[in-house]
């Protein structure tokens, strides 16, 4: 570890120690997946606090207001952030999905228009991909869009499972712009303001009891002519580039929370005696082993040449590996907690683990289900023929 990194870590730790206090203190370790309903307004203020401290967009190029930090330092930031109890990032869709896509494929005007709002925690984003009839088969999208006489785009249709739409200012939408087109052809990638008469957002209650995602209905909703990323009809390419970010780097920060969650399991096991059960001991050790696998696989993925066009096995397997690991951790946590797990707990640690247990059931579904991941691994990674 270079001295540089040590100093940087110290800087992060110091900053967290002096900022995650006072009115923000209640946010410690809150607001992760499965806990998005915790203090949303305060968490947005926290995002702005973070931004003011220069901690958003660490990996973005300097030209786009980022700090262009090397990977090791980005990781160090996430580690120290979680160690200090940093809350779940309500701005992650914007920061880790929308922004890299705009940096890669947006126009200079779009970059100037949208990146500062994301970086400064002023504008939040939702992802409008899935529809009732288009989940794994994303290319089956039927939401339509067309340019009106004024040149602005109009939208008609329904998106579903849209995380955090109710907390967001903007949504990126994949919609069919060429009437009669099928599959990947004729789609467009639009940036749409959510607060307008043509849009209705209905919360969907999840198995956790909370409502982090929504149905979003478009009924003649509009957006400006220049709010299209890529060319009309070529939205699939943009959508896939974004999914690449979703399945890769973006989750790395979130995964730092895994370390914390495993530690909570260990603490509970030590407190309630489960730590003496040989079978539980084996599983806790295994969870730790699995975490090292994710960690090293993530490092390998990110340290390779990003310029290389070769299919990288470590990147292909990553989503499947971490989501399964997390799901198993959830089950392990509940097995450690035992019968007390049947009751919604007041104990922060146990409550968090209950959320992990339930929410991790979604990890193997969103961003490409397990089955879709395995298809991708087999076909792209191993060259197996399509069925």
């Amino acid at each position: 570890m270079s001295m540089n990194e040590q100093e940087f870590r110290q800087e992060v730790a110091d900053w967290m120690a002096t900022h995650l206090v006072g009115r923000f203190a209640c946010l410690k370790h809150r607001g992760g997946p499965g806990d998005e309903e915790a203090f949303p307004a305060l968490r947005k203020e926290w995002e702005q606090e973070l931004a003011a401290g220069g901690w958003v967009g660490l990996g973005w190029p300097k030209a786009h207001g980022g700090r262009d930090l090397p990977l090791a330092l980005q990781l160090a930031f996430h580690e120290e952030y979680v160690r200090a109890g940093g809350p779940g990032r309500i701005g992650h869709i914007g920061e880790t999905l929308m922004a890299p896509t705009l940096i890669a494929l947006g126009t200079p005007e779009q970059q100037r228009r949208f990146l500062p709002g994301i970086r400064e925690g002023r504008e939040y984003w939702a992802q409008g991909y899935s529809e009732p009839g288009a989940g794994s088969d994303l290319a089956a999208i039927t939401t339509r869009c067309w340019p009106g006489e004024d040149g602005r785009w109009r939208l008609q249709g329904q998106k579903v499972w849209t995380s955090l739409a109710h907390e967001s200012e903007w949504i990126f939408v994949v919609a069919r712009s060429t009437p009669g087109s099928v599959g990947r052809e004729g789609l467009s990638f639009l940036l749409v303001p959510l607060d307008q008469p043509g849009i209705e957002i209905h919360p969907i209650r999840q198995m956790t009891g909370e409502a982090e995602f929504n149905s979003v209905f478009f009924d003649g909703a509009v957006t400006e002519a220049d709010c299209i990323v890529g060319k009309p009809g070529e939205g699939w390419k943009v959508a896939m580039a974004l999914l690449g970010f979703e399945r890769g780097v973006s989750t790395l920060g979130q995964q730092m929370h895994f370390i914390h969650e495993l530690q909570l399991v260990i603490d509970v096991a030590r407190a309630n005696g489960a730590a003496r059960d040989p079978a539980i001991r084996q599983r806790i050790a295994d969870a730790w082993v699995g975490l090292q696998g994710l960690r090293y696989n993530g490092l390998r993925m990110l340290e390779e040449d990003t310029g290389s066009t070769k299919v990288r096995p470590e990147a292909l397997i990553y989503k499947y590996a971490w989501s399964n690991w997390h799901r198993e951790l959830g089950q392990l946590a509940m097995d450690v907690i035992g019968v007390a797990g049947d009751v919604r707990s007041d104990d922060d640690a146990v409550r968090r683990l209950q959320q992990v247990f339930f929410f991790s059931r979604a990890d193997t579904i969103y961003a490409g289900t397990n089955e879709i991941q395995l298809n991708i691994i087999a076909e792209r990674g191993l060259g197996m023929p399509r069925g």
Partner: protein
Amino acid sequence: MKLSDEQRALQETAADFLAAHTNARKETDADAELWSRIVELGWAAVQVPEDLDGLGLGPVELVLLMEEMGRRLARTPFLANVVLAQTALLQAASAEAQQRALTALAYGERTATLILGPGLDAEPASLTVKARRDGDGWVLAGEAAQVLDDGLLTHAYVAARIEEAPGVALFELAVDAAGLSRTPLEVWDLTRPQARWCFDEVRLTADARVDDPARVLAGLARTRVLAALQLAAEQVGGAAQCLQLAVDYTKERVQFGKPVASFQAVKHRVAEMMVRMETARSTVLGVASRVAQGAQGSGLDDAALAAEIAAARVQASEAYRYCAQEAIQLHGGVGFTWEYDPQMHFKRAQWASQWFGPTRDWREALAAHLLDAA
């Protein structure tokens, strides 16, 4: 953990060379030839320090070599000579003994194995050879039930319990020492030959004791852990080959008018193999580069080292067993035959899952580390 150009070149050379010279299915008289070519390539000199005429490289380079050897099930004394004997000397021997032996081991003038407890357990209580003082020298007595011994050895390093003053010492002896008898064993994994060694009052001179008493215990424990990382690399190579065999076979095999590989039930199985194998590979590579950095002094204490390597060890053992089992299944009937390679990997995978301790033991050690600390 990004590989340097030199490391990539080494990896490619090893892959090409071993693909061309695999001996797993040849008569054992091909082994000596393979081994001498490996020595010529300098692979036995990889971790020997430069001042002893070695290449002064480290765990990452060894990992790359071991992975390729595992892929081809190479039958050589590499594991015994380089990974075990040399590491034991580096970690536990006196400077004088290192000077005497390491260059010879690196250049094939000697080929050695290491004897610890069964399955290469380094716990003093498990050592089955005892040493007794005899004037200036020593007498070794006892039996080592399963020693890695492919017949090409000239020497052995034996960890023995000292009878009078409780303790452990490391002895060097030649395989023709009087009183030593070696009986080859009928092993299932033919690519990993073993023998039973009986020490019937083997007399050694004083300078046969090669350990540095101050570090012998910790050094042997570390040898076991570092060697387990290398074995994990070998396991990853074997798992990768099982995956390759399964992919190649199912793409060729036609049933119901289509290649079997086009069925989703088959695709998902090979994809799962890839997930486990690549995860283990990431960990082995990552841990090896951490160990290499640690060697340059950025501190990885013994407990942290053992924990990191446990992760590699558990993943690699499980991945190899899983991939070997799946490779057999995905080959159908031919997968059960002697003619096809999956069975060889299946046997190697089982062997490797037991040496240096089963995953259960590594997990329990980790659990103790995670759960029982004050």
